[in-house]
């Protein structure tokens, strides 16, 4: 067992830069400590270990941020990131919610990853990523601090996403000048990608317009063990065991992985044929063990006649988008920028 571990570790180190390897391995090992075999989660230790950063209304590299309580009942916080403008390089502190001035300003509602259990909107890695998205897309980014599993199971994360969507949609100060509407995109990585999909579904049913959906290594699964899962189990930071644990923690008790939250186009899923689903940009890492499910998701969208662009990054592992030290990162960022701006 130890020997094959060695082989795994060495392979793994060959495909990512050293600092990425250190970062993701650190997460992996820390997360191993937090998941208990009985399905409970060491939340205190998780919060202690998570590196967080405060919001900062003083612009750094052209982006400032502030936190807003969107829903008191569920303590739903979101962190808002805004670009500074040429006219106002230093925003007046009293004017954080000043109306956006451009003709069209994309508003990206971002759901951080963490397999439904880890991280927060104010986790350092996600604060960094959101700031990048602001600069990249000249967008306002709203990062939602949704409730996490196992304390809060399905559908809490989706409910929080929905609450955030309604909130964003109803902010006058987020309306683009051109048409007095909020130009909304949904985005997320890992569990956040899963949430983005389900929030998009709710939006369609309620008539809120979503301009596009960006899913980075979205978290999907199913009862069946796919070829990629078997082939890549334990090879690149992620194991089937931990994937199973997180689904058990998120899905309602007693449900299996063919629940539509996990497997939206599976036996209990529904076809999106005839539904005006937003265009999607789906990024799949070639070394992610759940890629078969992600590819199946893309197929599901295509079969239903939905507009979807797949970015398959062959040698990418999970978390490649967290540090800008690899070409997958830059490729994906370019595509995101094109995806969001094509409507402007």
């Amino acid at each position: 067992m130890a020997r094959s571990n060695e082989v795994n570790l060495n392979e793994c180190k060959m495909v990512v830069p050293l600092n990425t390897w250190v970062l993701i391995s650190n997460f992996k090992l820390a997360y191993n400590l937090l998941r208990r075999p009985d399905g409970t989660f060491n939340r205190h230790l998780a919060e202690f270990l998570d590196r967080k950063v405060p919001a900062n209304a003083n612009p750094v590299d052209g982006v400032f941020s502030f936190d807003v309580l969107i829903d008191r009942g569920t303590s739903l916080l979101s962190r808002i990131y805004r670009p500074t403008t040429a006219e106002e390089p230093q925003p007046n502190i009293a004017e954080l919610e000043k109306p956006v001035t451009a003709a069209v300003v994309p508003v990206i509602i971002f759901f951080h990853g963490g397999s439904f259990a880890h991280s927060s909107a104010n986790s350092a890695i996600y604060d960094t990523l959101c700031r990048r998205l602001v600069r990249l897309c000249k967008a306002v980014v709203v990062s939602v601090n949704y409730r996490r599993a196992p304390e809060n199971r399905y559908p809490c994360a989706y409910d929080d996403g929905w609450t955030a969507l309604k909130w964003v949609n109803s902010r006058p100060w987020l309306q683009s000048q051109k048409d007095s509407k909020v130009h909304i995109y949904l985005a997320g990585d890992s569990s956040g990608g899963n949430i983005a999909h389900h929030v998009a579904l709710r939006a369609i049913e309620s008539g809120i317009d979503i301009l596009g959906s960006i899913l980075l290594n979205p978290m999907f699964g199913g009862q069946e063990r796919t070829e990629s899962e078997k082939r890549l189990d334990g090879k690149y930071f992620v194991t089937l065991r931990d994937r199973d644990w997180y689904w058990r923690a998120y899905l309602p008790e007693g449900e299996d992985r063919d629940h539509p939250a996990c497997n939206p186009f599976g036996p209990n899923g529904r076809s999106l044929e005839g539904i005006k689903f937003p265009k999607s940009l789906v990024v799949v890492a070639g070394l992610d063990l759940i890629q078969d499910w992600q590819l199946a998701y893309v197929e599901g969208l295509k079969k239903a006649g939905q507009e979807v662009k797949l970015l398959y990054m062959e040698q990418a592992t999970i978390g490649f988008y967290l540090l800008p030290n690899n070409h997958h990162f830059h490729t994906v960022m370019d595509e995101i920028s094109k995806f969001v701006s094509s409507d402007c």
Partner: protein
Amino acid sequence: MLRYDSTSSSAGSSSGSLSSSSSSSKPPQQDIDGLLAGAGYKVRSSELRQVAQRLERLETAMGNSPADFSQLASDAILYNPSDLACWVDSLLTEFAEPPPTCSSDFIVDPVNNQTVVNSAWTAAEPHTPQVHQNITYDEQQSLDNQLTVVTAMEEDSGIRLVHMLMTCAECVQSGDLSLATSLIDDMQGLLTHVNTICGIGKVAGHFIDALSRRIFQGMGGGSVNGGSAFENEILYHHFYEACPYLKFAHFTANQAILEAFDGHDCVHVVDFNLMHGLQWPALIQALALRPGGPPLLRLTGIGPPPPDGRDSLREIGLRLAELARSVNVRFAFRGVAASRLEDVKPWMLQVNPKEAVAVNSIMQLHRLLGCEQTRNSPIDTVLSWIRGLNPKIMTVVEQEANHNQPGFLDRFTEALYYYSTMFDSLEACRIQPEKALAEIYIQREIGNVVSCEGSARVERHEPLAKWRRRLSGAGFRALRLGSNAFKQASMLLTLFSAEGYSVEENEGCLSLGWHSSPLIAASAWQAVPAWDNHMSSS
């Protein structure tokens, strides 16, 4: 409700460059990996390979004992997760793997010293916030209904009020008192359109008052209501009850003191502000229950001299002595009456060189930061004699705010946001009269920050980053507060307080905040050994 945290230094990371981002108080070290720094971790580029190796060893160790490691994680005390190398080593120690030499100055303690404070809380299962939510849900509903009645006009008025407050403060700073005065009138008029029961309306009212007092003092009228020491104690006690900031301060400090006193038979706590001695019953009880038996505990409590001649310090000492007697802890109390901390001389504390000393300062050090930067300023004097006592530990809790800037407008702005957040957190308090009196307590602080100057302005809060520099410069080094203190703080919060408070770990210090804005920070320190000093090490 607008909300933002202005007390952070440059928390954002740079875009793609590899320059080290300054997310901490230390000056940027050239060798730190910039990308990992942006993720919150400090690793030297030159050490990346070694850290990677340690991670591999840790993985192997965990793989070899899978049944144990989540239990070990629950019991282990971990420190400073930002320092990856040391954190991984402390975990390796837990798995009984000898780590390579680490520059950490704190060895992980196995779980032997379970204190009464810890064991009481581990009985309660890790929090179930849903239950908590259900209890308050109905109340929240009605509060929400109240709040949703806020009309567009009110929201507008709220924003206008903030604008006007800022403009008024600007006028005060530039000396345009007549414009400032007319703004005060306008704002008071606007207040009638804004809900003053909660939110911006409530805190704005207090700031308008404070500005008004400042202006009229400048014009030769009015004086600041400082309140008697007796009143202050009552207000403090209600603030203690109404929200968790002081409780957090006390139990975090107590936990650190308890650990520092481990193995010592004679211990001496010096409390810089005794008040009603609220902090000490828990420590006495924890010491009573420590394995091996309690030490002899001496407590020296500093407090203002009572105007009516009553020896209130002694009364509190007697009550604590009663408690100590009831749990079989040998206890001695001494009160030191001083109207200002800088009037206290170390000989008054009668520290015995053989005892382990803990110096406890809950929101007292900032009072010594008179704006004159003279060579023997009160803060330097006091820090110097504390160092001379060579304490095992100095616990410092301070408001996490930047209220000591020279520019009035800056100070005012910071205070507006800090106290808005604090008032917001107080909304969750349901008990009266605790809530009302806690608000008056905070109101007095606001008054001092905004309308006082010179020696009268004692609420000179500075953020943790500044305290770190100051204390390091004065010959102290940080003792890290670990995951057990963090866990305890989190659990106590969920048991006693509303949803919305959060504890954060920041390089060995803990802070308590409201919805991701830290409001109070706790840290622990030790004097760096002075080699030319003849102090005996305890």
